């Protein structure tokens, strides 16, 4: 009985020692992780402040208003693009530091995820950049088309403008998804099909369905435009 009791105590002591060793082994790493996370939070906060200042200095809000992003965010009751981007920078930096801290723990599975996260970052930035400039291009070209159409007395000016905006936005989205590697083939096929269908539909509608109207419309526009312009437009200068 005494021997059994001694054996149990010995085993308990050994387990306790192992636990102590484990704690002694991991505690500095956990502290290290916490220090990295806290330091990361501070750095992320500074990054956020720096990004916000740079964006304000470069009048980024004006640029985002040009793209139509500001209106979209307002409608969704979200903060301004400057605020949103600076918060994004904060979270990105902090999550990066937290993952760096976690990797210090030496947990094999987590290390792999951390590596994947850092490898994904350039693609995420690339996609965001494409999205931003795509929206900018969509806004610019749709507005340019609207102005040109109105000044040239082209009736469906708003339709033309909206179509251009949708087309460029779709193209941008498909590019962004391709860069992110999300459903690449599906997005490409969906885009190709939608674009082809729209063009084919328009061609059929204009060339077959409304051929008389199309002929009449073109004849009227091309034949009368020169004459009407000369009649109405006196030299403005």
């Amino acid at each position, binding site marked *: 009985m005494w021997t059994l009791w001694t054996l149990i105590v010995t085993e308990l002591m050994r387990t306790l020692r192992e636990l102590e060793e484990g704690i002694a082994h991991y505690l500095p790493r956990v502290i290290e992780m916490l220090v990295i996370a806290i330091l990361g939070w501070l750095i992320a906060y500074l990054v956020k402040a720096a990004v916000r200042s740079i964006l304000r200095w470069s009048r980024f809000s004006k640029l985002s*208003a*040009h793209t139509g992003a500001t209106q979209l965010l307002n409608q969704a009751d979200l903060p301004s693009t400057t605020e949103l981007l600076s918060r994004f920078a904060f979270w990105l930096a902090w999550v990066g530091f937290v993952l760096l801290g976690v990797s210090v723990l030496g947990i094999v599975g987590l290390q792999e995820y951390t590596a994947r996260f850092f490898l994904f970052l350039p693609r995420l930035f690339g996609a965001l950049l494409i999205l931003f400039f795509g929206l900018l291009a969509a806004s610019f070209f749709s507005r*340019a088309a609207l*102005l040109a159409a109105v*000044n040239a*007395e082209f009736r469906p000016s708003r339709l033309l403008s909206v179509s251009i905006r949708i087309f460029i936005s779709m193209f941008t989205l498909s590019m962004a998804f391709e860069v992110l590697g999300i459903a690449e083939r599906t997005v490409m096929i969906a885009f190709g099909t939608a674009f082809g269908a729209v063009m084919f539909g328009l061609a059929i509608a204009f060339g077959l369905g409304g051929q008389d109207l199309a002929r009449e419309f073109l004849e009227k526009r091309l034949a009368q435009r*020169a004459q009407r312009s000369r009649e*109405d*437009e006196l030299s403005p*200068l």
Partner: protein
Amino acid sequence: MADETLLNDDFLRQLMNVGEVDILIGLPTYNNAATIEPVVRAIQAGILKCFPRERVVIIDADGGSQDGTPDLVTGVSIDDVRASRVYALRTLPVIATRYGAGQDSGTALRTILSAADLLRARACVVLSPESSTIEPDWLQRLVLPIYKEDFDLVSPIYRRQKFAGVLMRNLLYPMTRAIYGRGIREPYASEFAISSRLATDFLSNEKWGDQAGRNGAEILLTVTAITSKYRLCQAFLGDKPPQDRSAADLVEAMRRTVGALFSSLDSNFQFWSSIANSEPIKTLGSESEVTLDPVAVDFARMREMFVTGVAELEPVLRPIISEATLLELQRIAALDLSAFRYPADTWARTVYEFAASYHKAVISQDHIVQALVPLYRGRALTFMMENQSTSAEDVEKNVESLCGEFERSKPYLLERWADRK
């Protein structure tokens, strides 16, 4: 200082063969075969009649005409003019040079001014190759104030049909006068003369490379002359030649003139922000002449273009103009043709809001100018309806009243300019 990189070797060689001159006459041409010969003949006749002793050269700065315009310029024989028994005491060289492939009024003017600077011309005259109404006396009226009275810029005044030049009368003249404080009737002149001092100063202008410098150099020249305190005067020339214009040309004309005028406000803010009133400038000959010849104008179509513009361009106009102005435009757009009226005060406020938005670049600056086109049509319609059966004097009174409105509204521009929204 002459920009010699702009002048090709062959052109430079021809200029050096000519040597120093007293008067340089520049023709910025591009596919003007239909009108150029009478213009060159009138210039030659003007030289023989008024400046037979002076050393004169004609420079054709061509944008790459496909219709043989440069050959026509250099091919016009002075013998046709000499048939009038007046002889020049000197030869009259005519040089044609090609500055590029495509029309570019800024580069054409720069080429002419560079040549004038290089040849040390006392006076440089620029004439439009489309001036079908040009008379030999025009040269004398443009050059003499520089030659005899030491003026630096001689701007033209024309006799026009009362519905022609509406953009000039409803925007360019009133706004230039209100902003820069000088009552110059043709801030965008196609015929003018400048002194060597002003030519050299203007050549060193840094804005040649930007959009306004390329397309609206004529306006910038006027603005430079005013802001640099050069001596300005105006000379009555005669009939402004009628020109066929299409709707697309109006957009281009707005870019060249209104765009350049708006663009000039940025760099000259210190100058214009302190000016409260305008001063008249010396005018040689008639102050203005308006003819009442009947012209067919489709008022209904002009109203339709304004109404469509206000409705369709609402999302574009919203960041450019204030809510109050937009509502006022929508109210005007709802009026019938018989009651249609775009009042002078609303027009002045609209233009100033556009100018302030152009300065802040709330959207693309070119888009801002394009968005003004349908609104201008509404104002042009009002101007034509108001002056449909009025006399020439009343037309002039109405223009004067609009100028007053622009001057009174100037504090509003300053307010919008400073507004950071």
